[in-house]
Structure formats: structure tokens, C-alpha cells
């Protein structure tokens, strides 16, 4: 079998860790808990989101084991309902939404634009503390009575009927919302005002465009869920009636307010991952991204159009037919920019010089899984089909393909891509590739059967189900065990690499971004001298500092610097 060449061997030189960098510049727990260095804050987030990933993952494990039999043998119905609710809340609000922005965005964004830090470093730290405080409230809710309303908190179940610890949970999510809002605010201002000289908007890396678009959603969407959940909490505490029909309120109003944020929230979860992929593919194909301005523009388009599709979650609530038509139409429109991205990424591979390094494997895995997840969105946007597949496992499979197959793979790809920069070390390459493949395989085995379950009619959030659905459920659980392995392995070898990994040097891949022009790990102030940017993004041709020279065999285009 042909052994693909890895990038790292090319460089040849043996590196030593820099003497002083952001990890060792100051010591002690206070220097971490009171840090305003965006890189350290990113690591604080890394630890906390990983913790919540474990929490949510533990719940998912119990759910999948329980669902191996139709009657559900493992837990009571009450417990099962709490498990899927808490799985959703932990994963969505405390893992997926912060993951790429607060870990990779915080770490890399200032470096990528040539800044010393974000615009408001202290607010950045405040964001982390708000996240922790919100997390504490939610963990308190989980451990004192749990939460059994579904992560969607539909009223009047959540505001009146549920006997679980709803109020601390909604308070926790409310507080966490401000963490997001402040991060978004920080990123927007940073991108506007802190770019290094020569870093024009259209020289920005696409990861920055993606973070910018995500931040728009953070800023405009999160306040609405904040006030909505606050109202639910008040309703519970003081028996108010906004969403309770018995007191003149309207449960559908809750759904409108809830989904006004929660639909754009899914774009919060995927846009950053798309941004990561837009960095990985040009880097490991060693050529510029195909259609840069289309990828940048599509991120903004998704953020904007994404605010106008929320009621596609409500096609069957009895909403007006005209509203349903409008929202279905807009939901199809929002799919187009995503399609544009997939086509552009694929075209970037054409005539590239492709290495099979782990980030690229995650990148390609993302394309495959996001393709399925995104395409199945077209099924759900279709009014006539949604009548049948709404609130079934089809929906569950769809969003897991995007959120896990897409966002988590993007996150892991980004972790691996920037690991040398973050830690100064390389992770073990072959083990990492195997792990990526295990994850991809396990994921598909877990979630593809769920599409079939959905069309056959199995509703979601069921603790027990008719026996004819058992075979597919067992398949799904079997896949989940493989998926779990795919998650555990990186945690182990990444930690291992901190001590035993090869020292990476400033630019092991090599990649063209500004972040790779400083040491690995970087000094606290990022750059010893403020960089000045004179090159276009993903330009491998005119970058002698990358020490590359061979053009791929094949027809050369007309002299560079021109678009086709």
C-alpha cells in the first residue's frame, strides 16, 4: 500500500521549545484564574467544555444502552426523560456553542489578524466566569431533581407541569447566554479595529470570516433566548401567565421566541466548524481556497438568512399556512450558501498536493457528514414531508449529522490543526489518523439507522418503543460504542503529546496564516514585532518563508495573481 508522505518529514529540522512562551511566562493558579491572555482563556475553556462534553456524553451512553430493548430496561421513564433533556442542555449550551468560538476562536483569532490580544481581554475573562457560573447553576439543577422538559423547554410543560429543577437550569442558561454575547461582542470589535497593517478584510483568513458571522448571531440572537428563558423562570416562580393558556397566555408565543434564537444557534454551532475546514483544506492541499469571496460571503449569508427561518420548527403547530410557506421557502434559500461552500471545498482539492494528515482527514470527514446532514435538512424543510418526519428520529439523525458529524469533527480537526501552535508539540500522527477513521465509522453506524427509524415513524424522546424498531436501535447503540472510542483516543494521546510529542516548531504543516509566523507556543504578546501583511490568504506560491518550491505536476495556469 502506498504510504502517503506526511508534511512533517519535509521540514527535517529538529526544533526546541522556545524559552519563554504564554504557558510558562507566569506560574501559579492565580495567574491562570485571573489571566487576561486570550490564549490562556482559550485553554480554560478547553478544559471546561471538555468536562461538559463528558457530562453530556455520559447521558448519551446511558440513553443508547437503555434503548437496546423496546421496553427500556435500564432506567425509569422519569429518569430517561431527564437524561435526554440534560444531554441536550449540556451538549448544546455548554459544549457545542462555546466549543470552537471560545476555544479555537479565542486562541487563534488575535494571532490570525496580527493582534496582541482581543479588544477587551478582561471581558473575555468575564465571559469564561459567566460560563462557569451558568454551568454551576445547570449542574445544580442536574443534581437536585434533574431536568425533564426537553432542551426545548416547551410550555406549559416547562413553566407549569414539570416537577423538575427547571428554574435553576433556565437561570444557568440565561447567565451562560451573556458569556456568548460578550464573546461575540469581543470578536466583532476585534475584527473591526485590531487587524494588523495590511490585513484588509479580503485578506482575512476564512476562519475569521466565519467567527465574525457567528459573532453577529451571538449578538443579535442570544439576548432573545435570555429574556425568553427568564420569562419561563419568572412564570414558574410567580405563576405568571405569558405562556400558560389557563391564564390567558400562549404556548406558541414561547415557541416563536425560543426558536428565534435557537435556530440561528445551530448556525452558531456550524459556521465556526466550516471556518476550520476552510483553513484545513487549503493548508493540506497546499493551494488557495477555490472561491474565497464566495466562502466568505456565504458565511455572512447564512448568518443573515438564518434569522428568518425559525418557524420551520413549527410547521405543525397550527401556524398559518402562509407563514409555513414563507418559512419553508426561506429554509431552502439558507441551504444554498452551504451548498456553495461544499462545492468550493471540493474544488479546492482539484489539482492540489494533498497530504493525508489528521486535520485533513477530519476535514474530509466533515464534508461527507455535513453533506448528509445538510441534505437531510432539505427533507425537513419540505412541508409535505415534514408532516411525516417531524419529531421523529429522522430529525434526531439530521441534527446529529450536522452537530456531531459536522461541528464536532470540525472542532477536533481544528484542535489537531492548531495543536502544535497551542502546545508546541506534535500529536502522534498515525494513532490520530486511526482515531479519526474510528470516529467517522462509529458515527455513521450510530446515526444512519436513525434516518430509517424516523421514516418508519419512531417518534423522538421515547423511553420505550414498539418492538419492530428494535433492530435499528441495536445497530445504533453498537455504533455508539465505536464512536465513544473515537472520542476517547484523542483525549488520551493529546495529553500524552504534551510531554512526549515531538517539538513542532513554528510552522510544521506549513500553513500560510499569520499565526504560524510566530513561535509555537507563542509568547504572551503573540508577536515580538507587529506584523505587516502584504500577501493574499492561502498563497503558497509567493511565500519563500514556507520553503516550498515544487508545483504539482500538471498544467500550470497563466502567471499567478489572476483569477480565472
Amino acid at each position: 500500500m502506498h504510504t502517503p508522505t506526511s508534511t512533517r518529514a519535509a521540514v527535517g529540522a529538529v526544533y526546541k521549545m522556545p524559552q519563554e512562551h504564554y504557558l510558562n511566562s507566569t506560574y501559579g493558579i492565580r495567574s491562570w484564574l485571573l489571566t487576561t491572555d486570550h490564549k490562556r482563556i482559550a485553554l480554560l475553556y478547553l478544559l471546561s467544555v471538555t468536562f461538559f462534553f463528558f457530562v453530556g456524553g455520559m447521558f448519551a451512553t446511558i440513553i443508547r444502552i437503555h434503548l437496546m430493548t423496546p421496553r427500556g430496561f435500564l432506567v425509569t421513564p422519569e429518569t430517561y426523560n431527564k437524561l435526554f433533556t440534560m444531554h441536550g442542555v449540556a451538549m448544546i449550551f455548554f459544549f457545542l456553542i462555546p466549543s470552537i468560538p471560545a476555544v479555537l476562536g479565542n486562541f487563534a483569532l488575535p494571532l490570525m489578524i496580527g493582534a496582541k490580544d482581543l479588544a477587551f481581554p478582561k471581558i473575555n475573562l468575564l465571559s469564561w466566569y459567566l460560563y462557569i457560573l451558568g454551568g454551576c447553576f445547570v449542574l445544580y439543577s442536574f443534581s437536585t431533581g434533574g431536568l425533564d422538559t426537553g432542551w426545548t423547554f416547551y410550555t406549559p410543560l416547562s413553566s407549569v407541569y414539570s416537577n423538575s429543577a427547571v428554574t435553576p437550569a433556565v437561570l444557568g442558561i440565561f447567565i451562560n447566554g451573556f458569556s456568548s454575547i460578550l464573546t461575540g461582542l469581543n470578536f466583532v470589535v476585534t475584527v473591526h479595529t485590531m487587524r494588523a497593517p495590511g490585513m484588509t478584510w479580503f485578506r482575512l483568513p476564512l476562519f475569521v470570516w466565519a467567527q465574525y458571522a457567528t459573532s453577529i448571531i451571538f449578538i443579535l440572537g442570544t439576548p432573545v433566548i435570555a429574556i425568553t428563558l427568564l420569562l419561563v423562570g419568572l412564570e414558574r416562580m410567580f405563576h405568571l401567565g405569558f405562556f400558560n393558556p389557563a391564564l390567558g397566555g400562549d404556548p406558541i408565543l414561547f415557541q416563536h421566541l425560543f426558536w428565534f434564537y435557537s435556530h440561528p444557534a445551530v448556525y452558531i454551532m456550524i459556521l465556526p466548524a466550516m471556518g476550520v475546514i476552510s483553513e484545513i483544506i487549503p493548508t493540506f492541499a497546499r493551494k488557495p481556497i477555490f472561491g474565497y469571496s464566495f466562502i466568505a460571503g456565504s458565511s455572512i449569508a447564512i448568518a443573515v438568512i438564518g434569522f428568518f427561518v425559525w418557524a420551520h420548527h413549527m410547521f405543525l403547530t397550527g401556524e398559518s399556512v402562509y407563514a409555513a410557506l414563507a418559512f419553508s421557502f426561506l429554509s431552502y434559500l439558507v441551504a444554498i450558501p452551504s451548498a456553495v461552500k461544499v462545492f468550493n471545498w471540493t474544488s479546492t482539492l482539484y489539482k492540489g498536493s494533498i497530504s493525508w494528515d489528521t486535520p485533513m482527514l477530519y476535514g474530509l470527514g466533515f464534508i461527507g457528514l455535513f453533506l448528509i446532514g445538510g441534505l437531510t435538512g432539505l427533507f425537513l424543510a419540505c412541508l409535505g414531508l415534514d408532516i411525516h418526519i417531524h419529531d421523529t428520529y429522522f430529525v434526531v439523525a439530521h441534527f446529529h449529522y450536522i452537530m456531531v458529524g459536522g461541528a464536532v469533527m470540525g472542532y477536533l480537526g481544528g484542535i489537531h490543526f492548531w495543536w502544535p501552535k497551542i502546545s508546541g508539540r506534535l500529536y502522534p500522527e498515525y494513532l490520530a489518523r486511526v482515531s479519526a477513521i474510528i470516529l467517522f465509522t462509529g458515527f455513521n453506524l450510530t446515526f444512519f439507522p436513525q434516518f430509517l427509524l424516523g421514516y418508519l415513524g419512531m417518534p423522538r424522546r421515547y423511553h420505550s418503543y414498539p418492538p419492530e424498531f428494535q433492530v435499528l436501535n441495536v445497530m445504533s447503540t453498537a455504533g455508539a460504542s465505536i464512536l465513544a472510542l473515537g472520542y476517547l483516543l484523542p483525549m488520551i494521546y493529546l495529553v500524552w503529546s504534551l510531554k512526549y510529542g515531538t517539538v513542532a516548531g513554528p510552522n510544521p504543516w506549513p500553513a500560510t496564516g499569520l499565526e504560524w509566523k510566530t513561535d509555537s507556543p507563542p509568547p504572551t504578546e503573540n508577536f515580538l514585532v507587529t506584523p505587516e501583511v502584504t500577501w493574499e490568504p492561502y498563497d503558497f506560491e509567493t511565500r519563500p518563508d514556507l520553503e516550498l518550491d515544487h508545483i504539482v505536476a500538471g498544467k500550470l495556469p497563466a502567471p499567478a495573481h489572476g483569477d480565472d
Partner: protein
Amino acid sequence: MHRTGELYGQFETLEQQKESAALGMWVFLATEVLFFGGLFMTYTLNRHYYGTAFGVGSNTLDLKLGGVNTVILILSSLTMAMSVWASHIGKRKATTAFLVATLILGTAFLGVKVIEYKQKFDHHLVPGHHFQIDYRAQHPAANDDPKEIEAEKEELSKAFAKDPDLNAHAQLYFSLYFGMTGLHALHMIVGAGMLVWLIRQSIIGRFTPTYNTPVEMIGLYWHFVDIVWIYLFPLLYLIDRHQ
């Protein structure tokens, strides 16, 4: 990042710093618009459904006190703007004086709000188990004007005829009243806290013509809170006032 003089370490120039602060505050205010927006949306829908109850609820609010508060807040925006101007031209004493005036006016606003809230509490108009829209009509206090009580009783009986569930719907009005004015008052309290900090910074001479960003930014915030009240006042106090 450490501060050297007026420049914070993450910035290259003072101008970049000022630009960032301004953009940051405007973006934050945008989030506040969306935050209040959910409440305004809920208010609009419920007022459309339950116009009668909302009219009755609105009529229990004291127009005089609300009007006075509106004037107080507008004045406080004036004094705030004056303090920004004074800081721009380097007049330290004037800056401090105008900030203090703003704080006093803001506190007065909150004081009036306390009086209003107490009134509501006395009249059983706080949402919850004791809420009763016609409590005052049924149990007038000794110093209540009998003609006023009569008029209220008549209004209520007409309203109940139109909307048998008036009590529940009026409770919705008051939930929104307390929710919206309460959230607004909370923002005022935060603003007052920031004013205290500003006053102290101004006294020790922190603000100069080249560095007065905090005054300006907090001024922006204060104006925003004022504008929210300008919307709240007619929406809550002025329904059906022509009758």
C-alpha cells in the same frame, strides 16, 4: 495586558483604543435592543389580544408620577451629555458636577419608582396569588377620593362585562409592567453604579481631553436606558387615556 498611561496594552494606538470602545458599546447596545425586544414583542401581542384588560391596568398607573419620571430622565440625559462635553474640553470640576447631577436625577427616578411599586403592592396589583384587579375599588382607603372610586368601579364593571377573564388578563399586563419597568430599573441601578465609579475617576483627574472614553461610553449607555423609558412610558401609562 497592562496599561501604560492611557493606553491599554492590547492596543497599538489611543485611536484604536477609542474606536474599539465605541464600537464595543454600540454593539452592546444592539444586544440590549434585542433583549428588551422580546419583552416588547410579548407586550405588543398581549395588548392586541387583551386590549380591555390592558386599558384597565394602564389606568391604575399614576400619570403624574410617570410624567415626572420622564422629565427627570430626560434632564439626566442632558446632564450626562454636559458631563461628556465638559470632559472633552478638560473641565474636571464641571465633569464631576454634571456626573453627580446625573446620579442624583437617576436616584430620584428610582425613588419615584419605589413609590409607584409600593402603591401597586398596596392595591394588590402585584402578580401572584393575591392579585386582584378590583381590590382598590372594593376596599378604598380612607383618603381615596369617592368620585374616583366610583368612576373606577364603573370602568371595572364595563370591563368585566367585555372580558370575563379580566383578572387573569390584567395580571398579564402587570406581569409585563413589572417585568419591563423592573428590567429598566435594574439597568438604571447598574448605570448608577457606573456613575459612582465615573465620579471617583473624575475626581482623581483620570479624564483628559485625550482620554475621556469611559465618560462617553457610559453616557451612551445612559442615553440608551433613557430611550427605553421613552418607549415604556407611552406603552404602559398612556393606553386609553383619552377617556
